């Protein structure tokens, strides 16, 4: 946790999706709108937010699976946006991604062997390794066995499929892995297995994780840093313990007070911050601070002034008028 080396630095990233009308563009879904953060070596950065806050788009932007409209992504001192050809392949080799839905993330017509071999083949690593031995080791790392190699995805349960997807992401021994809600479609007992496994792999392989989730429990358990997103913007960023114990942004406070706690003694005694309404559509979000229409602490200025992240304590940033 003492690691300070910045692996990934994202600056002012922006991605708007146009919404087409009959003749003209009707507006933009501001999925990611000026997002900046840093991820440190061998730590987990959780990006947490409700549906439609842009966290999944952000995951894809980081790995350049979609092109941002604006902003820069610096990976180990290299600007990812400027990479192409061999350099881009090198970046792809050093990064991996695991998706939320283990049912559509594996090609149903390929055996596990083929699925896991593909990244190695793509990066010309077949010559260097004994493929069978390598794949068996890889499978063991994610808790599967040799005999699973020649089966098709549909022969596996959701949890096992997710293990395969993780194995695929790890096949090239990456440094940075983006995990997009990898456990949200799994049952609680399987989720716990998966979270423990991810943590063990991180420690063993010295990985940096970017963990996209909406589950605050997972954030607390797995992450070192957390970025709270609301409607395309990061409203608070900081070390997990600090953010959870001393949340600064009203939205973080609301979120923490609304999340169901699996412990009746805490769940029923804590004070609740009531929040009205639902997150507005990211198509034409509110002006000023995007949370102000729902914010219990809103001031009159909130609708006029758009705040940016300000460092309140070391590595604890918040974007709110109350702390400016």
């Amino acid at each position, binding site marked *: 946790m003492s690691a300070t080396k910045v692996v990934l630095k994202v600056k002012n990233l922006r991605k708007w999706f146009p919404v087409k009308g009959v003749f003209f563009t009707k507006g933009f879904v501001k999925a990611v709108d000026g997002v900046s953060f840093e991820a440190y070596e061998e730590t987990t950065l959780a990006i947490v937010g409700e549906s439609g806050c842009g966290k999944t788009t952000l995951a894809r932007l980081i*790995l350049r699976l979609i092109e941002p409209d604006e902003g820069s992504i610096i990976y180990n001192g290299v600007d990812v946006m400027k990479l192409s050809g061999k350099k881009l392949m090198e970046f*792809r*080799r050093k990064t*991996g991604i695991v998706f939320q839905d283990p049912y559509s*993330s594996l090609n149903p017509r390929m055996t596990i062997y083929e699925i896991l071999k593909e990244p190695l083949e793509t*990066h010309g690593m077949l010559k260097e390794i004994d493929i069978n031995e390598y794949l068996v080791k890889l499978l063991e790392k994610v808790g599967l066995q040799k005999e699973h190699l020649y089966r*098709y995805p*549909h*022969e596996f349960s959701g949890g096992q499929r997710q293990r395969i997807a993780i194995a695929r992401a790890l096949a090239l021994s990456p440094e940075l892995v983006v995990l997009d809600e990898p456990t949200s479609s799994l049952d609680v007992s399987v989720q716990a297995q998966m979270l423990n496994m991810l943590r063990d792999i991180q420690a063993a392989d010295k990985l940096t994780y970017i963990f996209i989730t909406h589950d605050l429990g997972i954030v607390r358990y797995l992450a070192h840093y957390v970025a709270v997103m609301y409607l395309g913007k990061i409203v608070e960023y900081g070390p997990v313990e600090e953010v959870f114990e001393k949340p600064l942004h009203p939205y973080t406070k609301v979120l923490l007070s609304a999340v169901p706690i699996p412990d009746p003694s805490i769940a029923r005694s804590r004070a609740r911050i009531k929040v009205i309404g639902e997150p507005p559509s990211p198509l034409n979000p509110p002006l000023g601070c995007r949370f102000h229409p729902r914010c219990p602490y809103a001031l009159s200025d909130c609708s006029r002034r758009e705040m940016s992240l300000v460092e309140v304590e070391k590595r604890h940033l918040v974007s709110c008028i109350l702390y400016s």
Partner: protein
Amino acid sequence: MLKKFNRVLLKSNALRSVGSIIYDWRLAFEVIKRSPLTMTGLIIVVGFIVLGAIGPYIAPYNPIEIDFSSIALKRLQPPSLQHPFGTDEYGRDLFSRVLAGARVSLMVSMAVMSIAIPVGLVLGLVAGYYGGVIDEIIMRVTDVFLSFPGLVLAIAFSATLGAGLFSAMLALSIVWWPSYVRVVRAQVLVVREQLFIEAAKAMGVSTRRILFKHILPNSITPLLVLVTLDFGSVILASSALSFIGLGAQPPTPEWGRLVADGRKWFPDKWWYSFFPGLAILITVLGFNILGDGLRDILDPRFRRRLEFREVK
């Protein structure tokens, strides 16, 4: 076997996955076995293909050559034990000619498919995967072809190219591919959004490999169904072309041609048109029943019902 197979299937939650080709076809066969109608279709289709392959060798008489010595004696005989389908005006055995006709129909439909499928597949893949301007161009051209009734267009092409079996094949191929482009493109649009495509991109897999290794195998099943259904339609269309004199020329024993030739003698010598017509009817029906059955099988909603149908 079935029980074990289905057990694997339930265990694996296959309902939620697209399912592998093997799975599709194995399941298809299980269903066919259970549905007498589809089974009938399958038997007809297999029978047609077998007859097409070996028909001329088992034909009791030469289907083409005319035995001038006995024309007067043998011409236009009604069905009998010797000539189950009767004879034509040159004394040839109609049963042998219908058998030989199976091969002609099989050849025509295979030739048409062997052109229409690859063209439809490649254009559909490209249009669906790349989208944008390429998609627009391909689809607009396709739309132009589809805006005319297929048979009318085929007649027009066939007439331009000149009568004959070869030009009929070519004409049918020209009108047949557009519908395949549509089907393939529609499926590609679905498969393209699957996460495994994105996963492949994230690993740096080349576009060509994504297209042929990931998208193509997952897009092909609906096309196969359509092709099965269409085999019958091609046979019907080529018969129609021959019927109006554009397709096969005498003495080629084409079914449509046979029906047309028999018209002169209808209804007195009814067998001349009747048996070739019956052959067309049964074959087309066979392909249609089989195709319909396959479509039902591959429709996820139906598949669900099938897997969970109540055992009496």
